[in-house]
């Protein structure tokens, strides 16, 4: 069994979002970078669990980013995984990133390709779908449970108002979310081991982005909360019903 886990760096969830250069760039100064939570807690940890069950499993991590992505990929290696590949590329859109991952995946004969369901910065939720199309593989998105049955997998995925279980032969691309695995933190042995695990750097494939970011903007500030005294819920109901017309 050979698994490729896609890892992205993302700003820590408590980051205050701001922009520079006339609102065309994310203000990255002083930002604490983490492994994108969906990639880490669900995709990577589920892959590690599969390896714990079957130690012959090989896990490769792939990230698309410049050298500043290496601390994050090392942290991912500290959790688990056998080796990492960094595609040495700057920014690009989802199509660009997915094309880089597909180029790596296409050379590796992977049985499983795991991604997080989305990154918490650009919220594209596109990489898994794009990689699967580039490789002409089946795609199961928003997975909340994953079990291997030999050469196929039973996957539970979210649908509107519930969930469904499906069977799919390998190889398959899966986007992972809450439920796949329980978050864990790296231990000291893992952190030490990560230092010597191979981290291969490869140059990007020549691909053009299909979209580009023109500018960013912050949402308009809220007008401020209207407080209603605790002993007068009738007033709140009146405001919601008549002023806000919320029900």
């Amino acid at each position: 069994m050979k698994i490729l886990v896609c890892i992205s760096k993302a700003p820590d969830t408590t980051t205050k979002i701001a922009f520079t250069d006339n609102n065309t760039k994310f203000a990255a100064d002083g930002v604490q970078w983490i492994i994108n939570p969906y990639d880490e807690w669900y995709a990577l940890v589920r892959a590690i669990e599969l390896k714990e069950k079957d130690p012959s499993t090989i896990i490769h991590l792939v990230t698309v980013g410049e050298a500043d992505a290496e601390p994050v990929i090392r942290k991912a290696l500290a959790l688990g995984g056998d080796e990492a590949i960094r595609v040495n590329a700057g920014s690009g859109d989802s199509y660009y990133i997915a094309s880089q991952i597909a180029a790596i995946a296409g050379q590796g004969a992977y049985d499983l390709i795991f991604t997080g369901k989305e990154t918490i910065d650009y919220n594209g939720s596109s990489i898994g779908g794009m990689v699967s199309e580039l490789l002409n593989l089946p795609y199961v998105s928003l997975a909340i449970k994953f079990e291997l049955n030999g050469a196929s997998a039973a996957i539970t995925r979210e649908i509107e108002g519930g969930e469904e279980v499906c069977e799919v032969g390998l190889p398959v691309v899966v986007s992972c979310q809450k439920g796949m695995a329980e978050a864990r933190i790296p231990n000291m042995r893992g952190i030490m081991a990560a230092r010597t695990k191979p981290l291969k750097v490869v140059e990007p494939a020549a691909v053009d982005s299909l979209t580009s970011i023109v500018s960013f903007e912050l949402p308009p500030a809220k007008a401020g909360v209207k407080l209603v005294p605790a002993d007068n819920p009738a007033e709140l109901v009146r405001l919601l019903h008549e002023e806000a017309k919320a029900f």
Partner: protein
Amino acid sequence: MSVLIFIDQSEGHIKKASLEVLSYGADIAEKSGIAAEGIILGNVSEDIAALGKYGVKKIYHVDNAALNHFDAQVFTNAIAEVVQRSGAKVIVFSNNVDGKSVAPRLSVKLKAGLVSGAVALPDTSNGFIVKKTVFSGKAFANIALNTDIKIIALNPNSFSVNTGGEGSAEVVKTDVKVEEAKVKVTSVNKVKGEVPLSEADIVVSGGRGLKGPENWGMIEELATLLGAATACSRPVADTHWRPHHEHVGQTGLAIAPNLYIAIGISGAIQHLAGVNRSKIIVVINKDPEAPFFKAADYGIVGDAFEVVPRLIEEIKKVKGVA
């Protein structure tokens, strides 16, 4: 030249999110002076022609039972075939569960730029620029689509359904090549009788301030009264007071209802990221310093166990429910 709108269905019923994208796509078509067309895959039990009232003139219906179950790969190929035949230049999806799965595949297949999570009509004054949410709702980005064919996946609850329209659409029965899905659905488990959280207009949500799962009765009663879905904060889901699918926030579900009522939730930045696109936010919390009040439209500083039962009584009066 046309705008092609993907009309998503489940078990033969048109999803609410589809009415939003129909209205949105028809608006784009009208502003660009081209035709608005729809596509439906699978058997449908509703009146398809009646969808014309949302502004769509023609609907391609691939009435094939092999398409009753969504599959990203099969749907991508079917849609691509209709795109080619219809000459569509803009393709619109809802950024819902199915849209998130099929739109990226179609983007690759057609080499068409994709904006997912769109919240507004495209700005075509200088190119084709679509606004979308980024940083989990904490900001927006304006994205230029630089390809001949453009794909937009519209966030649910971010465009009003056009309710004033009239007319009926021409339904064109269409055959496309449908291959066998590699993903086989073996069971479907829908929560019956409840409003799906992602489609709910009103959401009532509880946090740690409710002290324990045994206290959710009043949350459910309030939700039932308002026709609302119930949700919860992350600690509540993590301690299994409530099921995981109710968790809203940065690492849970991101929602955008018309009304979000947060009870006993302090409003950590990660929680806000999942709910800050709600049109109106009401916060009930006994801590006046709770950060959630800064993001709220209306609030009551008070004990939920006293406020909520009285709130229920007052809503019953307004609704005329005994």
